[in-house]
């Protein structure tokens, strides 16, 4: 398979301006973003609220039009419509037809997707089973809980057995059990060789689920890659807590190793780069300090995210 066909989604330099109203100044929401998603991965499009995640997804789904730039899905320009039979989409916070039962709802989408009439009933039953709603198929959506709605929404996205699933904040507003159910569904889908594109602002979901991420802040991509590499790139550090050193000597050592310093009444604390821990300790002990503790400080995605937010703000 060629390099290109490995790329399921490709976004190149997309810009989006919104006009808040007639005569009002237009507002740039996406500042030329580019990223790509590979076949078979769970891709996390991550960023704080208002970063532009939903806007990007709506452009990919053809619901709004980019001001400039190009994007393709499965090698087709997003302006075409033929590839749409291979994708499923769960919008953010959707309210479905609440006058339908779960079964009627899925039947409607199955018919729209051209599922042959003879297969519809079976397909719908299987889908209800797959999203864990077999017991609620004949209840109106009006009576569904938020988690159940999110699951029937995923059922709707899966009705034509798509290759790629686009989920906008699939976990938001769910309790821990609801989130676990959605996670399990996403894993099942990936295990069948499909690709998932999900947006989220919840970092624990990213750490648990995603093979690859792009971080977007204020309409700009701050990082794209594996969450693990992302952590590796960050300089790890350690905290050394010690006592019994004169302030002037302490300052000398701090300057030599470029350590950050925090003093409390009893102890002093150095923050140093991981690969310098040995040298710093040696220097401290030589001058007669009593080392109280050494603690590695791993950068979490949370911190990186906050850094990215700060950088994006500049």
């Amino acid at each position, binding site marked *: 398979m060629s390099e290109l066909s490995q790329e399921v989604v490709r976004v190149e330099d997309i810009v989006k301006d*919104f006009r808040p109203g007639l005569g009002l100044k237009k507002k740039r929401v996406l500042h030329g973003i580019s990223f790509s998603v590979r076949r078979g991965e769970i891709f996390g499009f991550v960023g704080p609220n208002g970063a532009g995640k939903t806007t990007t997804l709506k452009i990919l789904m*053809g619901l709004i039009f980019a001001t400039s730039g190009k994007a393709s899905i499965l090698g087709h320009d997003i302006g075409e419509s033929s590839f749409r*039979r291979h994708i499923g989409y769960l919008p953010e916070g959707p309210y479905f037809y609440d*006058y339908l039962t779960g079964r009627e709802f899925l039947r409607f*989408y199955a*018919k*729209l997707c*051209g599922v042959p009439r003879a297969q519809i009933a079976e397909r719908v039953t299987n889908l209800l089973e797959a999203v864990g709603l077999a017991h609620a198929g004949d209840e109106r959506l009006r009576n569904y809980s938020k988690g159940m709605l999110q699951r029937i929404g995923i059922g709707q996205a899966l009705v034509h057995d798509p*290759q790629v699933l686009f989920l906008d904040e699939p976990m938001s507003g769910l309790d821990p059990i609801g989130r676990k159910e959605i996670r399990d569904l996403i894993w099942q889908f990936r295990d069948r060789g499909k690709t998932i594109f999900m947006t989220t602002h919840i970092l624990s979901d990213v750490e648990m689920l995603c093979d690859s991420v792009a971080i977007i802040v204020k309409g700009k991509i701050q990082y794209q890659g594996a969450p693990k590499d992302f952590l590796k790139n960050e300089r790890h550090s350690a905290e050394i807590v010690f006592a019994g050193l004169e302030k002037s000597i302490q300052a000398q050592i701090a300057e030599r190793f470029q350590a950050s310093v925090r003093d409390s009444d009893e102890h002093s604390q150095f923050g140093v780069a991981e690969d310098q821990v040995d040298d710093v300790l040696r220097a401290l002990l030589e001058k007669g300090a009593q080392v109280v503790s050494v603690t590695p400080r791993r950068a979490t995605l949370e911190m990186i995210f906050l850094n990215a937010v700060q950088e994006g703000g500049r």
Partner: protein
Amino acid sequence: MTEATAHEGQIEAASNGGLVRVLGSIATIAGNTVREAIRSRVLYLFLVFAVIMIGAGVLVSTLSYVDRPRILQDVGFAAVRLFGVAIAIFVGIGLVHKEVERRTIYTILSKPISRSVFLLGKYFGLVATVWLITFVMALAFVAVSRAAGAPVTLVHYAAFGLSAMELGLVTAIAIFFSTFTSPMFASLFSVGIYLAGHLSRDLRDLGAASESETFKIFGAWAHRLLPDLEGFNLTTHAVYGIPVTFPDVAYPVLYAMGYSAIILIAAMLTFEKRDFR
């Protein structure tokens, strides 16, 4: 063969024939629209009021010593037309707006369904609903007329038929406005066009009778551009037993179809380009 192309083959085989596919999608969306409408309370509220007003014609007519059947039927026709238009405009605009607001349209358009197909499905679903309601109101009208001893002739049925055609046109106008403006403005514009449409002959005649050249031209163009809705009004013929010729019925039917088609094409063009946000 990759999994994707194998899959493509499977679905394509399943959905042979582009036109059949498109018509099927329109029918599915239309069917769902009818279902949504008949499961909503507003519709029954309108219908109950309409039937009450048709029945109330009996009371109103008892106030008079002459022409009781005529007064009864005048009130009845007025009820059918008033509530028909109210349903076409308010229910029609409401249902289109709800699709966007509730983001149900997002999932539909992410399937291989074009915006135009969606809009046509919505339109035919709404027209079917409005016609269903008109039919029920006509039944109530006939029942009340029979009970009160008022005659019901072929012309009465023709009048209901043309009312139905008019409502199809009004629904197209309501849908057109709701493709690009808020429900409030869409309702205002639609009601405005409906009222102006009933005056469009008067405008033409006023213009023709006027001294001013500008006014003449204005009247003529107003009549040409606005829908000529008085052409659909056979209620006076029905109530007063004025004979109706074949062209009196056939011409408005063709006119409604042509005018609706043009409005729907304009609606599809604006709908294809808009941002859903």
